């Protein structure tokens, strides 16, 4: 069992020339927790991981592993291990040597090395392929070797840099489950970078959503899903993501540009209304009229893309079996308790009070 190591990041910044990849970021990743850093490509999430690992130096700020300040230590003294996106296995070594390379460098005696390689190979299901070269393995097996190579050193901190993005959908699903189980077993503090929100939602204890090098939200999957703190998070999480409708709060009603009223609203002035596609009720007597543009039938449910009265797009998911013809009209209701309100300028959520006022 690895030592309990929490990761504390204080005002961390990373600049590449004049470009700020991470700007003054602070967060605490709990010991033994599985933290997912989620964001679109180019948002600085991989850079953050590299800075934690010691592959990049921080421009400013501090990183602590438990009580130890590590931002100035070389990578090998930090006690991290990392799993890379393109596996980064050593092509000329067989699986056994790949897994054991770190131990060999650490001058672990040969018999102990064998034993430890055998143990992780068993955990990762690689016992039968120990003598093979990486080129003779399937994608899933290669990724397992990469994971085995990382955990064989019993690291305090395990870092994952989009490890599943090269795998096909089914394999990705299996690997997610395997990795979650493995995490339960070894209990190292894990940080997992991905742009895939499903990976984030299914595996994370806590999700750190970042964009442009800044934290958008840091919370449990439930919090991130049910209480997004910004339009960015709302529009990023969920499949399809939350609808974001801009309009104006006027005399207690939320009006579209053309004057149509969508719902009650406790705010005056321009605001953004957010509602999850799966929480929109289709009702014959619904107060909101939509024009259907497109319908994706997915079997278990359908995703309808429609237009509001003023032309803003909106998506909703309908239950099993129901669908709609493009061009037809449909009527829906927005349940008052499911509405989110965001500032139209900053995109930040407007305090929860608004909900209270409506219900």
């Amino acid at each position, binding site marked *: 069992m690895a030592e309990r190591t929490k990761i504390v990041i204080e005002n961390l910044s990373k600049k590449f020339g004049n470009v700020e990849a991470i700007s003054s970021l602070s967060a605490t990743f709990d010991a033994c927790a599985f933290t997912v850093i989620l964001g679109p490509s180019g948002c600085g999430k991989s850079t953050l991981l590299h800075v934690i*690992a010691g*592959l990049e130096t921080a421009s400013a700020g501090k990183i602590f592993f438990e009580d130890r300040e590590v931002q100035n230590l070389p990578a090998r003294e930090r006690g991290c291990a990392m799993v890379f*996106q393109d596996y980064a296995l050593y092509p000329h070594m067989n699986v056994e040597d790949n897994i054991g*390379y*770190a131990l060999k460098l*650490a001058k672990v005696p040969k018999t102990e090395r064998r034993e430890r390689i055998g143990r992780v190979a068993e955990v990762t299901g690689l016992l039968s392929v120990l003598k093979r070269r990486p080129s003779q393995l399937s994608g899933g097996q290669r990724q397992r070797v990469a994971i085995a190579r*990382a955990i064989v050193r019993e690291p305090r901190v395990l870092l994952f840099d989009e490890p599943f993005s090269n795998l096909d959908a089914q394999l990705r699903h299996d690997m997610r489950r395997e990795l979650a189980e493995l995490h339960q077993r070894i209990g190292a503090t894990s940080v997992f970078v991905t742009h895939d929100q499903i990976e984030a939602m299914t595996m994370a204890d806590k999700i750190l959503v970042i964009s442009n090098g800044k934290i958008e939200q840091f919370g449990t999957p439930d919090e991130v899903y049910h209480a997004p703190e910004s339009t960015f998070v709302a529009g990023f999480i969920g499949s399809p993501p939350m609808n974001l409708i801009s309009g104006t709060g006027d005399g207690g009603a939320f009006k579209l540009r053309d004057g149509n009223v969508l719902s009650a609203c406790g705010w005056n002035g321009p605001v953004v209304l957010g509602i999850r596609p799966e929480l929109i009720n289709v009702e014959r007597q619904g107060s909101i009229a939509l024009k259907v543009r497109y319908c994706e039938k997915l079997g278990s449910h359908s995703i309808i893309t429609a237009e509001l009265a003023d032309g803003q797009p909106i998506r909703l998911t309908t239950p099993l079996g129901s669908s709609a013809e493009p061009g037809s009209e449909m009527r829906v209701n927005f349940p008052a308790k499911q509405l989110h309100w965001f500032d139209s300028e900053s995109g930040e959520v407007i305090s929860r009070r608004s909900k209270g006022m409506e219900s």
Partner: protein
Amino acid sequence: MKDSGMIENARSVDRAATFILVAGISFILLPLVIAAITATQPYETFIEAGGLSFALGGHFLDNMEKILSETKLLRQLGNSLAIATIVAIMKVGFCFLAAYALVFFEGKFRRALFAVMIATVMLPLDLRVITTYQIVANVAMPLNWILDATGANWAIEKVAGFRPYFRLSLLDTYFGTAAPIAANCTAVFIFRQFFLTLPKDLPRAAIMDGAGPIRFMIDIVLPLSKTPIVATLLFFFVGAWTNYLWPLVAASTPDQQTAVVGLARIADSDIDEIPQVPLLMAGALFVSFIPVAMIAVMQRQIVRGLNLSSR
């Protein structure tokens, strides 16, 4: 219709390409064929024919025997072997290290260094043969300059009463012949290109595994570079083997000359005499046997190793 037209087209292109290839190959091979035929002729046939002829002579073994007994080509072959080996190993070694530094280390002067390396390609050895000769004739020359320029010599003269002058000549040595040829950075491009095709996370993975830059080079990059290393070794071996001007200048005695230089010496025997062309051709075959055999055996490796686009 369109399809068949395309195929028709492809066929005529094929035919034209084949024709050009055959023409090109004949153009290149013809001198070699003439050389091989001439090498079988006795001197007398050559004189009677009044020059080159296509008649096989049956004197090939006699000519070869003469090469071994009357010339120093066998010994010079040994010199060539030693010098070409030193050149190939030095070139590949230095270029490998330089490319490794260029690709895997970040530094302010990386671009400038690379530019300087490119610039040296524009200054081939043939251009600076005199300066190079001066330096090889006394490799301590820079030291003398420094002692003069700093006034150290003057001080020593005051104290000890003599003016030191250091002298170390590398002329007529294997190393002295090989080193100036080896000071060349063409392979830096080849290795740099190859290193850039390696997965970008590979060095990161090695760092995370606890490998330093030297370990990463020896354990990971070196074994992966086997193909380009073998190819460039062969390539430079052959290049050094056929090098003429510098080895001619650097070695003054027949015993220290390379085989190619020795071969040229067979041609200029006596002014009044017609040169022993059949013997010369036999010598040419004798001298080129080793590099040709190496290329024949290893040509696949050379093509694979120098092919930069796909590994």
